[in-house]
């Protein structure tokens, strides 16, 4: 659970501050470039399939003011991208690890508070 070795800045040349779990301190720092760097940090190379999910999660947050846990993330994906992609296995393959948290981080959202 402790991640105190995470860098406090996104990269040496940027002044974009991260919290010790790697989430943006100031959510307005987010941009597509920043998303790419955050993804790098997770060992993920962003493809159009990743972007579909990132955009979906950002609009989820814009509407509901909360980052989705896994279950609603699957449901939201199902609704806008169809049954094929709206499955947790698909999302987990795109964003390995704690999928809901990883997506929220790359999409520049606060950490989902109800994750654990």
């Amino acid at each position, binding site marked *: *659970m*402790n*991640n*105190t070795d995470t860098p406090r800045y996104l990269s040496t040349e940027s002044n974009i501050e991260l*919290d*010790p*779990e790697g989430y943006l301190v100031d959510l307005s720092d987010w941009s597509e470039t920043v998303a790419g760097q955050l993804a790098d940090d997770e060992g993920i190379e962003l493809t159009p399939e990743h972007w579909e999910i990132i955009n979906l999660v950002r609009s989820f947050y814009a509407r509901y003011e909360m980052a989705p846990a896994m279950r609603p993330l699957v449901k939201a994906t199902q609704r806008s991208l169809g049954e094929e992609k709206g499955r947790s296995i698909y999302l987990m393959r795109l964003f390995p690890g704690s999928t809901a948290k990883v997506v929220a981080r790359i999409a520049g959202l606060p950490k989902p*508070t*109800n*994750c*654990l």
Partner: protein
Amino acid sequence: MDYGLLVMGAPYSQPAPHSALRFAHAILARGHQLAGVFFYHDGVHNASSLMTPPQDELNIREAWKALHEQHGVPLDVCIAAALRRGVVSESEAARHGYTAFNLEAPFELTGLGQLLTLQQRCQRLITFAN
């Protein structure tokens, strides 16, 4: 029988923590198990190491701690409710760059999921709240 307690009142503001402590000792006295106490809402203040009541009043944090030491009762504190209210463990303080913290073992910061687990594990979950 296995009991769990959900405590959602703040010490010295509300009677809930006192009632809960009295009840905790009574269930143990009747030979039941206390599987855990979960602190939520204003109940998270029960965990504050910095509470300093006068010497002639019960220190509620110490009373919970004694319950843990004598009976091994886990004392879980909802992390989201605690952080909002400034009840912070050493590792959370480091994580947020704070110089102070006020939650120590045997209290543990944990997710709300722990409350659901406690509820499912116990035959009885009793809530104390005001």
